[in-house]
């Protein structure tokens, strides 16, 4: 397939204007010239391509999913993908030219608003890559604000998030610490944590603030915010995390949607794009990218972050999702996710599993299995179920959402119960 419209006649005329006889004349200075043969596939027609890609997709197996751990299988209303596919939104880029980018800009403003309303924070940016690197950006922000270089992480942070934090700290020459003291830049806690435990983290915020550190709450399953106290209410200075749950498909791990929201006093330290409301030359309401003096294209080595491209389309998906679901829909998602997880937990307890959660949980929980994890996983697989994350020592991290029907739950239990 070929997406080049130029005809032979066009090419000849264009070469003539440029003053060369062949396209090769234009690339003579590009050295060393590549003369080898690339090991690329044969060009495909659209029909061949469709067959090839379909074949690959069919090689994957989509089973009934009881896995969360940073990627959640929620229902996505049909209208989300239909609206998202509109080329005017889909094929634009960063809205540098506001007059012809009001669609993207207003959607970003709405996204920032949704994030603030859900988290109880003052201001949010236009999105970051995904949850783990968003949390790392929160740590960098804290260090830059406090002038300190130590980061405290509460136990049971998503292990991949911790790994990313370690990588960023290594690069930026920061240290993870196990003490909260006068050198601590920020205190980080995930809520609900990796095991699904929920708690009021007010005490941790106070501990952080007592020593002049910032308190960051990491949110990985944001549908929980529909029924849980927002972090802004228990003292968070920064909320960072993942919003894939809001209308974004699992897609084998990406693209997802990182977000960061802060209290007002940290606004000028925020990384990435921020959209603001203003007026145009005719007095109408409009939207622009603002506070760009923080960013790399203006400030270069003194920027708050190097982030440029973010996840605008995913932010749009989340915005449309939240608008479609509304207060009632989102609350239903949260209640059903909670209820299904608790139902499965009760049934598993009856079947001899032991719940290991130390606190109330939302839609994820950890159980110790009465027999080997490998055996259970393979029994579930035979029933077409991916039954959770094996944490070792026969402990399973299990997740439910509104997508797990009561029938699925019964199948799960019957697969693992008995001998």
């Amino acid at each position: 397939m070929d997406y080049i419209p130029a005809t032979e006649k066009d090419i000849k005329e264009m070469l003539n204007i440029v003053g060369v006889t062949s396209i090769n004349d234009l690339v003579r200075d590009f050295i060393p010239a590549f003369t080898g043969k690339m090991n690329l596939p044969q060009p495909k027609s659209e029909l061949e391509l469709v067959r090839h890609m379909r074949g690959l997709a069919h090689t994957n197996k989509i089973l009934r999913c009881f896995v969360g751990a940073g990627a959640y299988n929620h229902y996505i209303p049909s209208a989300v993908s239909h609206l998202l596919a509109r080329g005017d939104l889909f094929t634009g880029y960063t809205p540098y030219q506001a007059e012809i980018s009001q669609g993207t800009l207003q959607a970003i403003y709405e996204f920032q608003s949704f994030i603030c309303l859900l988290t109880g924070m003052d201001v949010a940016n236009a999105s970051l890559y995904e949850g783990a690197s968003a949390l790392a950006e929160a740590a960098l922000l804290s260090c830059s604000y406090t002038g300190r270089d130590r980061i405290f992480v509460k136990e049971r942070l998503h292990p991949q998030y911790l790994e990313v934090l370690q990588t960023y700290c290594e690069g930026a020459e920061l240290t993870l610490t196990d003490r909260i003291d006068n050198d601590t830049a920020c205190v980080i806690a995930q809520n609900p944590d990796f095991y699904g435990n929920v708690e009021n983290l007010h005490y941790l915020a106070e501990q952080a603030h007592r020593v002049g550190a910032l308190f960051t709450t990491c949110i990985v399953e944001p549908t929980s915010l529909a029924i849980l106290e927002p972090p802004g209410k228990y003292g968070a200075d920064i909320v960072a995390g993942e919003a894939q749950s809001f209308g974004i498909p699992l897609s084998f791990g990406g693209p997802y949607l990182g977000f960061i929201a802060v209290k007002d006093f940290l606004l000028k330290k925020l990384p990435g794009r921020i959209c603001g409301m203003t007026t145009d030359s005719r007095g109408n309401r409009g939207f622009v990218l603002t506070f760009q003096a923080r960013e790399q294209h203006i400030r270069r080595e003194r920027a708050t972050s190097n982030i440029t491209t973010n996840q605008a389309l995913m932010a749009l998906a989340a915005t449309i999702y939240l608008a479609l679901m509304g207060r009632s829909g989102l609350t239903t998602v949260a209640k059903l996710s909670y209820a299904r997880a608790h139902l499965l937990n009760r049934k598993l307890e009856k079947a001899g599993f032991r719940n290991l959660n130390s606190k109330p949980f939302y839609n994820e929980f950890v159980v110790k299995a009465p027999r080997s994890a490998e055996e259970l996983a393979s029994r579930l697989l035979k029933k077409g179920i991916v039954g959770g994350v094996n944490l070792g020592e026969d402990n399973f991290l299990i997740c439910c959402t509104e997508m797990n029907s009561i029938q699925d739950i019964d199948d799960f239990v019957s697969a693992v119960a008995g001998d």
Partner: protein
Amino acid sequence: MKIIFEYEEEKNTGHLQKEEEEDVCIELPDDISRKELLPIPNVNEVDVVRHYTNLSRMNFGVDIGFYPLGSCTMKYNPKVNEDAARAEGFSNLHPLSPEVCTQGSLKLMWELKEYLKDITGMDDFTLQPSAGAQGELLGVMMAKAYFRHKGEKRTKAIIPDSAHGTNPATASMCKLETITIPSDPRGNIDIRRYRESLGPEVALVMLTNPNTLGLFDENTIEISDLAHKNGILMYCDGANMNALLGITRPGDQGFDMIHLNLHKTFSTPHGGGGPGAGVLGVKSFLSEYLPVPQVVKRDSGYSLDYDCKKSVGRVRSFYGNFGMHVRAYSYIHSWGTKIRKVSEHAILNANYLQALLKDTFDLAYDRRCAHEFVLSSRRFGEKSALNIAKRLMDYGFHPPTIYFPLIVPEALMIEPTETESKETLDRFVLALKKITSELKEDPEMVKQSPLSTPVGRLDEVAAARRPNLRWRPSQRTNQSGSE
């Protein structure tokens, strides 16, 4: 246009069964339960669909018209790639599914890496970084880890003044000091100044090639050789790879690392500002520093390998922006062995436009260009680049990148890409020429432009001075509906 929070409270469409149908009893302690009503509105689906459809009509994308935004490679995004990424087998696959379920995805990722290795002349790739800037960040982290293992302390990065802002921003995130090298009169890096800046404290040279002026650095090989003689790593910002496919390979030019922006060269859609994908390629001696996990091919099938002791770790959760990998992979399959044609036509289109426009404006560097070129509108006075950009909207074009690179006054950076027809390019030239006469005949009108867009020029000063960055419930004038 209303914002979504200004709709009257409506009956929610109800995409899920009501929780009343089940005995849902939430038993959460009071201190962790939400006390206030969730402050997001209930709007009916019809209004939501109209709202975002109308917003989309206030936007400009490649599907609407010519989008010569320099440095961003706004080429056509083939629709068939969208279907591929949306296939259920890809889009509904949980990243922690067992490997028996994920062979299709892993195969795709492994093959994509193989193709990219071949295209760039690199020995290994990671698909993990989410965007070019994250690819750069990873590259600089790997360079630091490499020198740490060698027992060398290197604290500086050499970056030309024409570079994207991300390069110095990334270096400084990793606590490297930037040495800025000016460009010479031909738009190359000033080789004398470059030579003087080399030394044992320099960790890497970050070069965009062709650079942001759209020029292939004529001293590339010498630059690489000099760096390597001083033990310095060569990093290529591959943002402009659209000029090089099948023509020359960064790996053969002496680069040790390169990030590619899949959303530029490999046609994955820009999405209004992302998602991108900033995959990173390296020479074999840097392979062991790549992030985990890596996709590997074994006799038993494809697998994720976490075993790499020198790895710098992860830069994000899971394996990267997989949906973008699918699109790029599909794109490469459509071109296959003929991929060189992409760059040939990108370069032809750019040179054609440059030839037609170089007398109307000042050409920043009078050489044949690669896939883009930079004009200066300085002969039309201050702010002329801005005014020309705004007026172009009235002619139905997205403006070029303006005021970048910073070293060219009143810069207009034009990248047509290979997917534009001669007819489109000719119309663009006519519009620009018409605007330059308007600048002479009716400059006030041009300063007022755009005149045909949904909003006029926006007050950016007011936006920063009185920030309104989110909707607040107190902004609602017609409070109605409650639960």
